[in-house]
């Protein structure tokens, strides 16, 4: 992934992070889709695939070992999403974050199973294809803004590790090889970075709760 090709929102400072996640959004909040899926609304299924398809596909492509594996992963992710739709709580996480969590969890599971089977690692193939911007509710996600703010606070070497881990889907071992850093250092950078994001998210979340009560 070209790190310069971020959205404008990526460079936008997240002023909203302390004020709360769901209360101060730059874009009008559109109703969430997953509660409708959970209620059996068939049109919501198609909408979900349209809105979150490229997000899920992008995660599956990045974390899967082969293109065929990515297709299987995408299907598995959506099956999990339909099953988990009822568990989605907009007061806990944004819908995009919820979808991302499920997608990552599935993709990581698959990758672990593939590694356990000893599947030879293949290079991520990137075929030239038409690219499109993400749905607005992904591009303007408040939790992403909090994470961007946290990234700005981190030391450059920590930030680099997080960008490779979450932007490019590299494993700790791959990052260690790419940056010529000891594995322990990579893990520490990743943990520290995650911890900072966790702190900011928790703070923003409790601020949002205070704002709503």
């Amino acid at each position, binding site marked *: *992934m070209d790190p310069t*090709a*971020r959205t404008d929102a*990526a460079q936008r400072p997240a002023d909203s992070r302390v004020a709360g996640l769901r209360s101060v959004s730059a874009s009008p909040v559109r109703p969430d889709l997953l509660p409708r899926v959970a209620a*059996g609304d*068939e049109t919501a*299924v*198609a909408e979900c*695939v349209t809105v979150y*398809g*490229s997000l899920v*596909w*992008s*995660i599956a*492509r990045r974390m899967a070992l082969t293109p065929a594996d990515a*297709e299987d992963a*995408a299907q598995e992710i*959506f*099956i999990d999403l*339909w099953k988990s739709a009822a568990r989605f709580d907009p007061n*806990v*996480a944004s819908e995009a*974050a919820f979808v*991302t*969590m499920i997608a*990552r*969890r599935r993709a*990581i599971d698959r*990758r*672990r199973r593939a590694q356990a089977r000893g599947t030879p690692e293949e290079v991520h193939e990137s075929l030239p294809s*038409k*690219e*499109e*911007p*993400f749905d607005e509710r*992904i*591009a303007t*996600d408040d*939790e*992403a*803004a*909090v*994470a961007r703010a946290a*990234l700005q606070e981190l030391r450059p070497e920590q930030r680099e590790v*997080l960008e490779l*881990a*979450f*932007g490019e889907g590299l494993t*700790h071992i791959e990052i260690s090889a790419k940056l010529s850093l000891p594995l322990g250092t990579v*893990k520490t950078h*990743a*943990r520290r970075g*995650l*911890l900072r*994001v*966790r*702190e900011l*998210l*928790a703070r923003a*979340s409790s601020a949002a709760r205070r704002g709503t009560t």
Partner: protein
Amino acid sequence: MVAVNALDPRQEQRLDELLSDAACGPLEPAQQAELDGLLEALGDDTPGAYGGPGGPERAAAALTLALLPARAEPLPAHLAAKISSAGLAALGPKAAGNGSALPPVRGPRRATWIAVVGWAAAAGLAFVLWTQREELTDLRLERDGRVAAEAGRDEALRRSENLAADLALLRDQAREAEALLRNELARLEAVHRSDLDRAAQDAAERLAARESELAAAFDVQLAELRASFAAREDELLVEIEALNELLGDVDPAALRERLLGEAPDLVRVDWSTTEDPLVATAVVRGDVVWSPSRQEGYMTFQGLPANRADEQQYQLWIFDGTRDAARPVDGGVFDVADPSRPVVVPIDAKLDIRDATAFAVTLERAGGVVVSDREHLLLLAAR
């Protein structure tokens, strides 16, 4: 961050680390086993906060969203279609279930249908029996076959139920075995880790001990060096003092000063020039000091003309009141190199001077003379 209990703080921290690592990507088998072991120990208290606002999985999701590129390849159309239809299929029974109060159309309803059909067939059979007695035997055979088939189906159903029960049991046993293995693995890992920890601690202690040993040795050496330097410094100071004294000894001016300060019976007389043409126009200042008790004395001059030491030298004569006035005592020869600067000359009396009454300076040939012809009597200092 993660709400846990039944774990000690170290395990809690380790759990948090492993969950963080797991949120980044697949764990190594050993770490996965360790994580599973810790989660197993937690039992039903599996950290729900893992994906909560303070959980690592949630942060990983936020970072993933934050680091998305501006544009990306959309989900391929064929895949989107497949996923949508699978979604609708998954939704299907649920939607139907919501819309209808009837139970799913399966087992019981089919049994009712079979019963109705069965009864109808029986009624038909009775009618046929009644009307066509000659076909009775064939029909009886057919009925026996149906009964046998139904018995076979029931048997098959029973067997499949038994098999399903066995399978469920096997699954439970496999799950139990897996849990046991994981526990054992986690325990072994914990033991191994504590060994490593202990070894690391030992090494750190040894290192610290060696470090303090070296530091102590260094301090001792430093103190010794300091002491030896201080002693050497004292010695050098003593030597410097001795050298200074030695220097003072050979400096006539300093010796004269000391004599002035110390001698109780000092004789001091100023020089005056004579009519001799060598000094008639010169202005000669200076004096002569003499201590009879120490038999020590000095002359000072300023303005006495310089002599050519290889040809002529100045010579001092001391007149002793207890001796013949015609034979003054030789006080030594000396030179003057620079008339403009004061010069101090120690008196080198060749005999004891018991009563110095006068001092005279003559110019003689180089090396001096025993008896002066007083051709050039230049200076006089008389008491």
